[in-house]
């Protein structure tokens, strides 16, 4: 028995080659687990989780802080090291982080019995440790160009602390989660501007004959971040107010404005460009839906927020994990069809979920959206399992990138 356990542990050694590997696996697994349970509960096969704040809050919290939280940890621990040239994070530290994440999931699921304090302690410790790990390299970097990650992550931690405080005081904790949604959108804009600039320019260079390289322009990005932050503050302080509606429309327009940089001709049709492009479309349409709802007196909040979360957040996590996950495991970019398929499924899931809140066929569309989501992440996990858990094809250790570019 001991031998078998020992052999199992030795076989997992390649998972720890780079911090993103276990976290990306967890992201996709949690996408399946949390949504699978939710679908089961919706259909009536599984019991609705009876937790402080209610089942909907559990669903939102697990997908925002569980699913997205794991992907953020994986992304930041790899990207910040790469951006700043800092020494890699020790695998032991990664294991502590991972244990905190697991403990947080378990404690929240058991919060009906344990109360919210254990979950709060584990989840906040997870975020604080993550901040501590990236803060050093970010501040030591002489240009300090990437401090925005630190600010966004700190704000996310504050919103998470607020969430648990509200839950502990038995108040409505949902506004804190909505605050986190906008912070995630800001984090996407910050992260995508760097990644997308590289992806688009690689595609353009591969196609040859570029007139002007693609540049993610800071003023446009700042306007979008400002508008989203203003909307978010207003949503928190003046929920349901027309002011919030106008700010949501401003956020939508400013995100559409970001796409000015993206209209680069036929290169747009490449998946590496198209998927991030669709992220922004989902984000803009999500905010526009919320804004129109608030100004016309209808309540389209749920539809809009699900476009933001399933569409924008889901797609951006998919493309980042599909690109960074492979490149930093020593593989080249994946040109197989599963990636556009998974992206299409996620996009459809977002549209279905938004349509469920807007239309008359609530239940079938809701179930359809959850099923599409499960399919998308299932496909991702099947095609990425070996990449993320197995040895690198070049036999190296660490997070070094494979030296290949996307081809036309």
């Amino acid at each position, binding site marked *: 028995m001991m031998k078998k356990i020992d052999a199992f542990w030795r076989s997992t050694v390649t998972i720890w080659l780079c911090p993103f590997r276990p976290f990306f696996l967890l992201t996709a697994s949690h996408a399946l687990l949390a949504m699978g349970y939710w679908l089961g509960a919706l259909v009536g096969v599984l019991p609705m989780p009876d937790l402080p704040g209610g089942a909907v809050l559990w669903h939102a919290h697990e997908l925002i802080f569980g699913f997205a939280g794991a992907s953020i940890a994986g992304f930041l621990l790899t990207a910040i090291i790469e951006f700043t040239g800092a020494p890699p994070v020790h695998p032991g530290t990664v294991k502590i982080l991972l244990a905190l994440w697991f403990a947080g999931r378990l404690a929240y699921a058991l919060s009906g019995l344990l109360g919210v304090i254990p979950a709060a302690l584990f989840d906040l410790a997870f975020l604080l440790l993550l901040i501590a790990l990236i803060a050093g390299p970010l501040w030591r970097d002489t240009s300090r160009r990437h401090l925005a990650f630190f600010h966004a992550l700190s704000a996310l931690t504050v919103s998470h602390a607020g969430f648990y405080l509200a839950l502990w005081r038995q108040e409505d904790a949902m506004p804190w989660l909505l605050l986190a949604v906008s912070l995630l959108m800001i984090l996407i804009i910050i992260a995508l501007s760097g990644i997308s600039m590289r992806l688009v320019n690689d595609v353009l260079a591969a196609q040859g004959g570029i007139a002007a390289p693609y540049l993610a322009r800071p003023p*446009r990005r700042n*306007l*979008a971040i400002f*508008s989203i932050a*203003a909307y978010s503050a*207003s949503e928190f302080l003046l929920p349901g*107010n*027309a*002011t*919030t509606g*106008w*700010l949501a*429309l*401003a*956020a939508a*327009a*400013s995100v*559409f*404005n970001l*796409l*000015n940089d993206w*209209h680069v001709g036929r290169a747009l049709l490449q998946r590496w460009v198209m998927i991030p492009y669709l992220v922004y479309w989902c984000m803009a349409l999500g905010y526009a839906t919320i*804004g129109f709802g608030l*100004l016309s007196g209808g309540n389209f909040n749920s539809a809009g927020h699900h476009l933001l979360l399933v569409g924008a957040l889901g797609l951006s996590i998919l493309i980042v994990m599909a690109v960074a996950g492979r490149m930093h495991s020593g593989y080249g970019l994946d040109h197989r069809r599963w990636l556009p398929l998974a992206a299409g499924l996620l996009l459809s899931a977002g549209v279905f979920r938004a349509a469920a809140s807007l239309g008359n066929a609530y239940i079938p569309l809701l179930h359809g959206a959850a099923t599409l989501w499960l399919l998308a992440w299932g496909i991702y996990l099947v095609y990425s399992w070996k990449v993320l858990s197995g040895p690198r094809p070049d036999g190296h250790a660490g997070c070094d990138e494979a030296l290949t570019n996307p081809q036309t």
Partner: protein
Amino acid sequence: MKWRSGLIQEWATSTGNYLWSGWGSLASLCLFMAIWTLTAQGFGPLILPTPLEALSTLARLFQAGEAGPEILITARRALAGFGLSVAVGSLLGLAAGVSLTASMMARPIITVLVGMPPIAWLILALLWFGAGDGTPIFTVFIACFPIIFVGAMQGTRTLDGQLKEVAQMFGLSTWMKLTDVYLPHVVSYLFPAWIAALGMSWKIVVMAELLSTEDGIGAALAVSRSHLDTAASMAWIVALVGTLLAIEYLLLEPLKRKVESWRTL
């Protein structure tokens, strides 16, 4: 044929890009609307109606068939006065620019014209033309004229003498000298002057209407003010500013881009 389709594609791309860049302006406008809404909520509808109230009042005015004709009347007056000052101001300005003596003579007169407040012109126009189309058209004309005149004069005065000599040396025809050397330079001065004058014409025409006529946006504003109808007043102001924004961003800005790209080529 091929170059033509390429040209059409290029035009479509640049127009598409221009229209898409409007999202940035739209975002700023929405932020402004949010501030307006917040302020309006603080002061109440009698002092300041919210943008939605103003817009719904405007929609009601359009549905009742009141807004359309009034806007057309105001537009007709503003454009007539503006067109007149473009024609006269540009021609006289160009002529004055050609001769140093004429520019010297024109300068103090222009200073007088610029210094004269439009409301003073309005009083004179009321005495001369009475309550009708003449008063607002004249006031717009006389207020826009010096701006365009100065633009045209400076455009001609600042023509590069060396360029003239180069054109002479290469034996350019008069037509080519005019279209390739003089016109691009002069237009780069003239065009901003026209745009400034157009913006001004909209403000002047409403002021003139408010005091002198019984139709047009200005007169409608006077009526809504006397009824203490803040929502209707705001609706008319929105109509006015909306029309100005549409002209500015859909007509003048693309034209300006076209002119400027011609100049840089």
